């Protein structure tokens, strides 16, 4: 059975959906970060697959930059998270309600 582009895209979509579920149901900020990593990786898979099946390196380039962005996001995000934790003693999302309208 030949594995085509659509197989990878479906896989990518499933992974993305899992990430979305995580983003929506997680209350712990750290685990929320994990979920965003899943989202980014799901997209990376799609990029790499498209790149392969169209013989175009642009997809890989973008996956590469996505990884770079994910790394810097983690660095800054974790820094913020630590500051938040030091101030509030909790990284529970329900505590973050200063933007309540």
């Amino acid at each position, binding site marked *: 059975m030949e594995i085509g582009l*659509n197989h990878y895209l479906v896989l990518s979509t499933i992974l993305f959906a899992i990430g979305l579920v*995580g983003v929506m*149901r997680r209350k712990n900020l750290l*685990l929320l*970060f994990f979920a965003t990593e899943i989202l980014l990786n799901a997209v990376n898979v799609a990029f790499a697959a498209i790149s392969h099946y169209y013989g*175009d390196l642009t997809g890989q380039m973008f996956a590469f*930059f996505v990884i770079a962005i994910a790394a810097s996001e983690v660095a800054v995000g974790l*820094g913020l998270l630590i500051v938040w934790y030091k101030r509030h*003693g909790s990284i529970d999302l329900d505590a973050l309600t200063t933007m309540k309208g």
Partner: protein
Amino acid sequence: MFEAVAFYLFAFLTIAMFFIVVTTSQALFALSALAAGMIFISAFFFILGADFLGAVQIIVYTGAVMALYAFGMMFFDTTRDVKEKQGNKYIIVGLSTLAAVLVVVIFAMPMVSGNIVALYPGIDGVGNTQEIGLVLFTKYLIPFELAAIMLLVAMVAGIVLAGKKMDLSITLMNEAEIEEEKNKKVLS
């Protein structure tokens, strides 16, 4: 045949790992499962012939990002079970599934795939890493440099944000000390 077997195997493993990440109530389980999922993702990159990307995936994610998370978790109280959001699970799953289905519909429709021309086609006779290098340092040089600067800025920001009061640990302090620290407002 080998490709199909590998694809389905790693697809199952990745989905399972990521499922654990979003469902487990133990932060450490989640961390471990995420790291495993990242490595399995890199397997797809190898299958797709993107060797360099696969290597970067392993190095950056499992080497750097996961290590960073692991260190970060030392600051937090991860011994407690993670409480989940109390909400309608059907809405969450339903929304996610709908989004996924829609993305698939969009991709599956021929309007996307019909007329794509390779902008930077692969070069014959050279390895993937060399190809990447050729494109990255010619066509994508400026984005590459910008990414480098961004990483540097992120590093500085991470250090500045997390580095204040590194000598204090809330988990080791008693309540009175924590209150006192809070009243100082040094971190505001």
